[in-house]
């Protein structure tokens, strides 16, 4: 919780330090009185601590201010875009899991084979390509040349495929590498040998016994990635013209639309906290030696 407040405070202060939004909204040559009145209307004429106090006050009654640019409640503006970002994030997490997890398992089980080598190379490359470039290349191949998928925008599942893949690639690669090394470590443990001595098939040993132990490291990383994806999908959203929060934030920063930026950032930070909690829960579910204690921050 403290972190949440810290975040909002930092954002709040930085925004106000970054310059006067009023300049953007009034025609040039407006008189100083007009400027001053406008500023008052936006609540910007008071000192920063006072502004922050008012902001917190409004927060508790659910009022996060009015968007300067859109002239609607900032909360509405943000929430309108939220589902899109959520959709993209969820889809890319799916991509990460569907590609990354099996790859990691296969690479570990078939250690030092050609398949293992190929997977490791692919994973390494996956971590090196910039998101926006892979997005563009995908568009070139699948939309421009092959006409299988639409180039941009949001709509049917076809619109979702490429952005999800572009965004999820890096995480998938990291997951594959991490899971591979985690599995290798676990497979050397004695209880895996014991499981085989019981007569279990190799597949069962790998999937039931080894995986559950190896997956915890991956979950932590996955959690971090998800949180990062939420806000950081900016680049992907730009390339694919995906109407999500990331783009909103960038545009709002350019528009000096403080309220929207604040609200959006708060939302993202909140999600981050929620995801961290979920990760902790998952971790405790998987590993019985970990106990859930109350979170202090």
């Amino acid at each position, binding site marked *: 919780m403290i972190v949440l407040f810290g975040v909002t405070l930092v954002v709040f202060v930085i925004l106000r330090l970054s310059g006067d939004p009023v300049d953007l909204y009034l025609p040039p040559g407006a008189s100083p009185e007009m400027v001053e009145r406008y500023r008052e209307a936006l609540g910007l004429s008071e000192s920063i601590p006072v502004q922050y106090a008012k902001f917190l006050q409004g927060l508790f009654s659910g009022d996060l201010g009015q968007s300067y640019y859109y002239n609607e409640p900032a909360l509405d503006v943000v929430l309108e875009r939220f589902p899109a970002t959520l959709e993209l994030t969820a889809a890319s997490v799916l991509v990460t899991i569907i590609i990354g997890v099996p790859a990691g398992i296969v690479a570990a089980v078939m250690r030092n084979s050609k398949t293992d080598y190929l997977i490791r190379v692919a994973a390494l490359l996956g971590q090196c390509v910039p998101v926006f470039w892979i997005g563009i290349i995908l568009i070139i191949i699948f939309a421009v040349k092959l006409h299988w998928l639409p180039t941009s925008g949001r709509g049917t599942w076809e619109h979702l495929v490429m952005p999800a893949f572009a965004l999820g690639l890096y995480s998938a690669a990291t997951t594959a590498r991490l899971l591979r090394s985690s599995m290798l470590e676990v497979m050397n443990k*004695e209880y895996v040998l*014991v499981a*085989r001595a019981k007569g279990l098939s190799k597949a069962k040993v790998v999937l039931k016994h080894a995986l559950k132990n190896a997956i915890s490291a991956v979950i932590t990383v996955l959690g971090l990635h998800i949180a990062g994806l939420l806000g950081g999908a900016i680049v992907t959203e730009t390339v694919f013209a995906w109407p999500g929060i990331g783009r909103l934030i960038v545009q709002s920063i350019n528009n000096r639309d403080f309220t929207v930026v604040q609200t959006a950032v708060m939302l993202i930070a909140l999600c981050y906290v929620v995801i961290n909690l979920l990760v902790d829960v998952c971790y405790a579910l998987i590993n019985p030696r970990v106990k859930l204690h109350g979170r202090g921050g």
Partner: protein
Amino acid sequence: MSDALLQVKDLTVKFNTPHGKAAAINRLSFDVRKGEIVGIVGESGCGKSLTSRAIMGLLPPSVAEVSGSILFDGDDLLRKSDKEMRKIRGNEISMIFQEPMTSLNPVYTIGNQLMETILLHQGVSRKEARERAIDMLKLVHIPSPEKRMKQYPHELSGGMRQRVMIAIALSCNPKMLIADEPTTALDVTIQAEIIDLLLELKEKLSMSIIMISHDLGVIAETADRVVVMYAGQAVESTDIDSIFERPLHPYTQGLLKARPTLEEKKERLETIEGSVPNSHELPAGCKFHTRCPFGRPICAAREPGLLEVNGQGVKCWMHAKEWNDHDE
């Protein structure tokens, strides 16, 4: 030899090392009869644990080259596919390991891991499997078995975990149990309990046991017959009394002399000079001759065969008729 449950003949296990192919087990042969406990004793690196893995078929072919034959109830285990071996593992031949701390999977309950084997091999309902699991826990004298079923390995002590391992191994009533250093990682008092438990269960379930240990004390208390291994071979193979009263092989004699005893007062513990050679650096002829106080030229020249002396098996030139042939 006719009621031999297990017949290991000329078992050889070779590994690829940076120095070439090395035989970690070199034409090992021994038998285990029904209802008897055979102790395999030797220092670290002699290949005892490897033998148990070889019998269970747990050596991956890409890493180890296994040859010879292992006849179990007449069937050669080395000729079986992995699928066939899986039916045998945990079912007809079971194994318990040295480290109870790490032999149980930390993320599953005891009950889960116990029932797993039962469900796998006996095709009963979950409910029945659960009952059998609880029965097994009672058999190994674990108090409040129903409660234990829901617990996780880290909630149990080392001794109890080893009991659980035994319960798991015996849950399908195997004909043979391989115990690989089962007491080495335990406190002395717990050791005694586990040994008693194994002896009791052997009678109750009429199993054979292969007891692998480097601790002669454990072997003395449990084994009916003993196989002494050195550098991947069986150098002596006798019944328990003869081994202690009349050890024939110099290595066995050395092992026995190296133990501190309560009866004699010794100034210094006697050791066997030298150390166990690496599998890729085995000497020619008798593998022990470089450390043997009685060595003669013939020992370096040729490997001795397995000789029988008054019902005791020994692989040493000392007991062959060629021993007293000199080129003088």
